[in-house]
């Protein structure tokens, strides 16, 4: 492994404008983490046009900061109000809020921040060692391997996400179909353009992400806008005692490992790993009955896990070019907009971007730890801003951003249409995540499929016969076995959370 590029990444990460964008990113992330409604994927999508004029490293550092910053922010409302700002902090609400009701909100938040910091940082260190090896393997991948890999990605996101598997498959297929609009990637024949020039270049990824995540979420929330205003319990100083630390340090360690491993899995991500970590803590505890009544391990485990997973979910994106979850799909788009193709070449072609972004996460985690302790009060006060006021402001920013992509009002109508589609999908029980992910991977999947079919002379069984793609097919089959197990854990934990009256967005 080339350590000089790792080190020069620190130089990039510590350039003053990158520090500034990192700070900006984590602050925005924490803020949207606190506010229920708009998630990190939506926020990043809405901010994509703003990043057009930024330098690639700065842009990705900021957007990445939003993603992992949101994990910190979501915790605050989970603990204080039992209103998880993010899905990945739902289980934290169980014991976190119980602690808050016993007057221990401060220590709970403190442990959560420390656990998040340790989980995140441990995950960056592991990433630093594992990513180059994985990228090295992936360099040998050809069209056949990429076909199978993209299928694994879409499959896992579809099955590990919320909601029914078959609906995710339908959503993914619709996303793949939308990706075929425009010119044929190999032959240049126009497809599904309905004779209009506006669609000849295909639909810009930013439009799809902004429409489905941004406008779609705003429209969806419009229907359930009467969220009761709740009082905030007093939380004192967010500094845990020695006893809390002793009780939770092993949980933090286990959570970090669980989170790191599950984060790499496409579709695993932060939510799944926090649920699994909670289950692990409950199982290993001497007295499981304490859980749900204010066990500090029930905060420490999931919090370290969701941050570790948030970080490790960058691995498939940065080394294979396969986004592991919806937010990574948006970041995939952000990199493409900057003219950078995520994949095994990224580390050697753009070492400054790769290591600059990775190493900025150390800084981001430190900033979050520093920010989260004194600023909790400030962030909580943000909750007093009514969602009804934030929604139209977000819409206006989205619209202006959309227009600025191509100076084109047609794109604005597309975003609105896709927003309605996103709303309709949610109402009919479809997840927008698999749709957007499939849209992102659509052209890669089609091009790899067609190239490999040509190489194989039309013989589909070659996918299994070739050693490397055969191995990947085996992995695909293996995941089919593992996935139901993970789903079972999730269903059980989510049911537990729901029984305790925690509602995710």
């Amino acid at each position, binding site marked *: 492994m080339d350590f000089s590029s790792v080190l020069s990444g620190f130089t990039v990460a510590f350039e003053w404008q990158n520090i500034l964008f990192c700070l900006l990113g984590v602050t925005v992330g924490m803020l949207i983490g606190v506010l229920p409604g708009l998630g990190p994927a939506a926020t990043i999508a809405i901010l994509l046009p703003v990043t057009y004029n930024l330098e690639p490293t700065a842009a990705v550092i900021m957007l990445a900061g939003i993603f992992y910053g949101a994990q910190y922010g979501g915790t605050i409302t989970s603990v204080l109000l039992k209103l998880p700002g993010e899905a990945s902090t739902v289980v934290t609400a169980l014991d976190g809020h119980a602690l808050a009701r016993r007057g221990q909100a401060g220590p709970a938040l403190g442990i959560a921040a420390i656990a998040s910091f340790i989980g995140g940082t441990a995950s960056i260190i592991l990433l630093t060692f594992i990513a180059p090896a994985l990228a090295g393997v992936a360099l040998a991948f050809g069209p056949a391997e990429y076909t199978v890999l993209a299928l694994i990605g879409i499959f896992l996101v579809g099955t590990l996400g919320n909601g029914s598997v078959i609906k995710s498959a339908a959503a993914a297929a619709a996303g793949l179909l939308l990706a075929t609009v425009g010119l044929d990637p190999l032959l240049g024949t126009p497809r599904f353009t309905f004779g209009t020039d506006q669609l000849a270049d295909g639909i810009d990824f930013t439009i799809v992400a902004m429409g489905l995540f941004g406008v779609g979420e705003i429209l969806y929330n419009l229907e359930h806008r009467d969220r009761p205003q709740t009082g905030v319990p007093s939380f004192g100083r967010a500094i845990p005692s020695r006893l809390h630390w002793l009780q939770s340090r092993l949980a933090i360690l286990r959570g970090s490992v669980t989170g790191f491993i599950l984060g790499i899995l496409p579709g695993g991500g932060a939510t799944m790993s926090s649920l699994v970590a909670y289950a692990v803590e409950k199982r290993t505890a001497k007295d499981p009955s304490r859980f749900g009544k204010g066990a500090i391990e029930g905060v420490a485990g999931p919090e370290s896990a969701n941050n570790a997973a948030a970080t490790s979910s960058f691995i498939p994106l940065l080394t294979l070019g396969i986004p592991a979850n919806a937010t990574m799909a948006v970041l995939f788009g952000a990199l493409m907009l900057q003219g950078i193709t995520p994949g095994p070449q990224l580390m050697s072609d753009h070492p400054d971007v790769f290591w600059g972004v990775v190493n900025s996460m150390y800084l981001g985690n430190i900033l979050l730890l520093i920010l989260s302790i004194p600023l909790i009060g400030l962030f909580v006060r943000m909750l007093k801003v009514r969602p009804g006021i934030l929604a139209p402001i977000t819409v206006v920013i989205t619209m202006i951003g959309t227009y600025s992509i191509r100076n084109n009002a047609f794109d604005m109508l597309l975003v609105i249409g896709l927003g*309605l589609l996103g709303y309709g999908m949610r109402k009919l029980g479809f997840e927008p995540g698999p749709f957007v992910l499939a849209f992102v991977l659509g052209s890669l999947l089609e091009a790899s499929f067609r190239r490999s079919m040509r190489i194989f002379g039309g013989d589909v069984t070659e996918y299994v016969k070739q050693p490397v793609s055969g191995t990947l097919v085996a992995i695909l089959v293996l995941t089919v076995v593992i996935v139901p197990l993970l789903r079972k854990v999730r269903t059980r934990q989510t049911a537990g959370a729901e029984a305790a009256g925690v509602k995710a967005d």
Partner: protein
Amino acid sequence: MADTELEAAQEEADEPRAGGRVQSIAAGAVPVVLGGVAAWLSFGLNIGSLTEPGPGLWPLIVAGLLVASGIGIIAVTARSRRDTEAFTRGTIAVLAAAGGLAVYASLYEIVGFEVPTVLLMFAWLRFLSRESWLMSAILAVAVTAAAYALFIIGLNVPLPHVIVF
């Protein structure tokens, strides 16, 4: 404690209701129809063969997947599961918002962004968010001014605008 219970009750009232049978079947019918249309359009393109795939082959495969999963949804979820959400009176607000946005987008290139933005903000705040007349008016103008300062003066985004400094 009483407060917490009240909260929980309110949250439960807020919980979206599951949609009916028709909606469950529609969730499967929409992919089937969409896939069917896409398949029909794919045949209009050149399908080619597995060895020499034409532009229509991939869309046809994807359309097939869409139809298959749509049928699967009708078969599986329409009977057993309630994973849809019923449309409520709030749906009208959603459609109104989308319609308002479409008007907003169409006005953009004709009269610039200032007037439509003020109107959109005001209408949204007053009628969808139920803010007071005064609050809505102040916020509408303030947000538009802030957007002007940020995007046109600050970031130099070439938005169509009528006010020039």
